[in-house]
């Protein structure tokens, strides 16, 4: 029983981190049809933001939950203004440009911080279930991911900003004709996606060592999740994370993490063959 609980927590944790790591990418892709290859670096910058804040004596919770989204959101705003806005509607160019950006950021981070591993102290201690040790922070990550998902849903569904954003993505020309400043909407949406990536980087900072190149270890999963999910950002990410998180974690338990990630890829490839437009391309149509 205790072991089953531990396994259960692990599986849910895998799903929750998938959601957290993919959400920013999914918002930017789902709302703006932009595939941001610098997503992993946005996460890493969130991690560095948290580390710097901790080094400057900021409370660890503020350092991982408040500082990273603000810092990376602002960087996202600059990136959108400086690069992405010139390429709207041209998906391939946007991908390549954001890849250039990704390399550029890795280079900058390496130049500034060197390539030694940084980290943030674990703010929560573990607890025991029966004979097993469980991580309290993992449970926090699960709860926080759900909270974030809910907050984004409320933001898109019930606020004026969300309405403007959804309207613009549906029909930019119409929105502009109705007096919406679409340029601003695009910029804010991109910044929101970036902030979510930064937040994910901050939240995961205590559990993952941070080096300039660690973006690569996140984006594989994030891409699979977003692609598998399809156009509806929130529903897509959630359903795909449920699927891939369980498959990956089951394979990890059965074998090891290496084959876990292989199983993840295989699941994604098969899913794409069956549902080329992702889960929400077929089911949950019209959902957010």
């Amino acid at each position, binding site marked *: 029983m205790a072991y089953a609980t531990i396994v259960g927590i692990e599986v849910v944790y895998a799903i929750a981190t998938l959601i957290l790591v993919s959400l920013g990418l999914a918002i930017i892709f789902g709302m703006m049809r932009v595939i941001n*290859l610098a997503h992993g670096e946005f996460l890493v910058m969130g991690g560095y933001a948290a580390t710097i804040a901790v080094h400057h004596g900021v409370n660890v919770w503020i350092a991982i939950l408040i500082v990273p989204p603000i810092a990376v959101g602002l960087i996202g705003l600059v990136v959108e203004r400086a690069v992405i806005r010139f*390429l709207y509607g041209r998906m391939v160019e946007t991908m390549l440009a954001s890849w250039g950006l990704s*390399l550029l950021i890795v280079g900058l981070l390496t130049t500034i911080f060197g390539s030694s591993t940084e980290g943030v102290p674990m703010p929560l201690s573990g607890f025991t279930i029966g004979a097993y040790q469980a991580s309290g922070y993992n449970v926090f990550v699960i709860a926080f991911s759900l909270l974030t998902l809910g907050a984004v849903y409320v933001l898109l569904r019930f606020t004026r900003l969300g309405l403007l954003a959804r309207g613009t993505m549906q029909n930019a020309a119409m929105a502009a004709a109705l007096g919406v400043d679409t340029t601003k909407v695009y910029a804010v949406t991109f910044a929101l996606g970036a902030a979510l990536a930064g937040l994910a980087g901050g939240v995961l900072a205590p559990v993952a060592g941070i080096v300039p190149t660690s973006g690569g*270890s996140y984006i594989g999963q994030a891409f699979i999740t977003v692609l598998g999910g399809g156009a509806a950002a929130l529903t897509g990410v959630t359903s795909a994370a449920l699927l891939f998180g369980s498959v990956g974690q089951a394979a990890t338990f059965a074998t090891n*993490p290496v084959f876990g*990630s292989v199983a993840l890829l295989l699941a994604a490839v098969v899913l794409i063959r069956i549902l080329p437009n992702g889960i929400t391309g077929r089911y949950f149509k019209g959902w957010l």
Partner: protein
Amino acid sequence: MKIAGIRLDLIVPGVCGLALLFGLPIFLDLFSLLQVTLYAIMAILALSLAFIWGYGGILCLGHSAFFGLGAYAYAIAVINIGESTAPFLIAILVPTLAAAAVGYFMFYGRISDVYVGVMTLTLALILFNVVNSTSGAQYHIGKAPIGGYNGLPNVPGLNVPFDPDNSLDPGDMYYLCMGLLIVVYFGLRWLLTTRFGRVAVAIRENEKRVEFIGYDSRLHKLATFTIGGGLAGLAGCLFVNWGAYVSPTTFSMMQSAQVIIWVLVGGVGTLFGPMIGAVALSWLTVEVGSQQLIDANLLFGAILLVFVLLVPRGIMPVLIDRVWGRISLPRRPVFTAPPVAAREGKR
């Protein structure tokens, strides 16, 4: 271009290629010759992507997957087998089959260009993670460990086919790589004149029309992609031989990015440009690697950004325009078209 019935477009590169092949060993010392061998290998890798992206219109962002598979397949096979003839063929076969399998799922699933890019990139990322984290003794294929992040040192080199005692020295390797580069270049040129090649290009231009005419675009894309994967594997195999060493970096994002940058800088939709791009930027990589001032990621990131934003057609087409002063290239939009909202209701 024909002048007095002579195909200059074939003669000029042919003569240049042969002149380099036989001339360079006379003028260069062994160290420089080794460098040129590396450039030739990278040029083959560039050609493989130039073919599938520039002509087939298939955006493969994770080309290092096939390069790395070729490299590892050779290393693991040769450690197990010893004699290098079969390993050489296995090194081409494994990435070819991998490309065919992945391509089947992508093209028969009819996913859009952009998704193809992301899928291939993810493939490379996951292969990198897998190979990078299989360092223990429990991970081995036959006699060969996979080696994890340490890679595999001391990989035995190629020998004269079926003659294991007669291994190739660096001079031989130069002739092999340069010779194969020339063969691959003219092979692709020839392929592009065949019906298959022309249909592949037509798919890049308008996939729908190709199907209305009655060609199976899925099959053609699959074949194009598979050929590109196999050629990348060949380059990977030669690369291991060049350094007698293979590491997970052959699968890395940086490796994939480099190939993309070579093709982009040289000119998407040309074969010659990407070769030049590969040579010039490989040279630059070596130069950057030997100093501490600028980080390689920083430099290549900047190059990629600048070219996408300011010179999307690449250097070759722009140069050709300057020289001839007319619009001869590109004969099409530079990048593949945005995805058509494909086949609603069909699946």
